[in-house]
């Protein structure tokens, strides 16, 4: 538990440290807002339409494959820590796990789900 005290303190400090200059910038810096300045930037022309432009599903697919690999890694880390003590069977079991998920990648690849639009 003691080792997490340091991380907790560092977390609080690392939030304060960047917050202070931003606050100082707000206070010290000039503040003369006008509607034109505050309007959103669109290469100099007036903003057209809603900000919420329609998004493609492709982003979802990438995040999805990432999620699957994320979970795979969660299983693999304890396996890697124990690797030195594992028998050949244990290593092969881990490899079967990896290969199963490689199939998932292969499927996405073959279906063209990994193409950027």
């Amino acid at each position: 538990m003691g080792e997490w005290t340091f991380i907790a303190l560092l977390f609080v400090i690392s939030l304060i440290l960047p917050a202070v200059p931003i606050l100082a910038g707000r206070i010290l810096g000039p503040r003369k807002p006008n509607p034109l300045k505050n309007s959103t930037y669109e290469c100099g022309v007036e903003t057209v339409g809603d900000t919420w432009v329609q998004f493609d599903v492709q982003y979802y697919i990438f995040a999805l494959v990432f999620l699957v690999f994320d979970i795979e890694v969660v299983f693999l880390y304890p396996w890697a820590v124990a690797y030195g003590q594992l028998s050949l069977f244990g290593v092969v079991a881990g490899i079967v796990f990896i290969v199963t998920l490689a199939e998932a990648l292969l499927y996405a690849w073959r279906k063209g789900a990994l193409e950027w639009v």
Partner: protein
Amino acid sequence: MGDIFTTIYNFLLSLLIGLGADQVVADAIITFLAAAVLATCVLLILIFNIWLERKVLGRIQDRIGPNRVGPYGIFQTVADLTKLLTKEIIIPSGADLVPFFLAPILMVASVILVWAVIPFTGKTIGTDVNIGVLYFVAVSSLGIMAVLLAGWSSNNKYALLGAFRAVAMLVSYEVPMILMLLVPVLLSGSMRMGEIAAAQSIWYVFSMPLAAFIFLIAMTAEIGRSPFDLLEAESEIVAGYQTEYSGFAFAMFYAAEWAHAFTMCALVATLFLGGWRGPGAEQYPTLGFIYLAIKIYVVYFFSIWSRGTLPRIRIDHVMSFCWKFLIPLALILIVLTTLVDKIAQILLINRFPNYLSMATPADMLPRAGILLAVNLVVGLVAIGWIALVGRRERRHQTAAEHPASVEAGMATR
């Protein structure tokens, strides 16, 4: 023989106890001070790093680089900071205030937090949590969160588009990165950064060069440097998720970006280049700190070099390079390494009883040799494969653009 940090710790402890504090309170105060100093140093060293990078970049591009403010322009960054401090922080209309300001703060925090688990010497580390490597991965996902927040709260199309593009790229390259982070864990049998560094009697870059190389590529993409600097491809998405930020809010993104690069270099140095290890570092831990600094700056120099040399890659190429080359390669590498290493361990344990020992370079040599062989084979096959695919693709493209030239035998080679 204690190192310099232990000496400082003991000095402060005796000072505080002399002032009448009891042990627990004194420890708490020192922990707080250490955290504050660490966080401040991570940001302060940027002043030097930014100058260094601009100077080196200048030389690479046949310029002089900053040379006006102070000797060799070393105070250029300070001048820039002062200027930014006097600039207005514009809040775009329709912005979501809390996430808008939380984003740069979280971005900086996600970088500083990584330094908690980097071992500075054999004895000094912020905190050696037993999940060190995974802690780093978890913390860096806060950075992705910050990008999303910035893009979403700015109420700007370019910021939103840029943020989602950045997120898609960051999460993609996170996969090969975390897969390659598995390698030091596999070899050292621990997720503690301290133990990983200590286990490298032979640096992992020598036994697993391909893993180190894949990690280096993924790292370059994570810190958004060329050839992967699409996060700020001005010609396409203005300034990406930072479009609406100005003044010191922008400066914080800027600082986080630089600190991120430096932090990743420190990670490479620790995980693959042996961290604080070097001749004499066991007896004189302070020497280890110097070794670590040298290694970090060597990696950092390579990072600057690639930034100054390589052109930007198109986004679809960036993505397919990750998903269709790096990740399969990383998976194949892990599967083959673990399999061959385990079989070798079973076969050779009688001839080399110290096969798994990491105490001396001589103990590690048989294992490192086998791993190196696997790496070289996989690496050569991968190069051959990508050359083949690339040639075929070029031929397709030429055929599509100039059908006649193919018949005339003028297709690429």
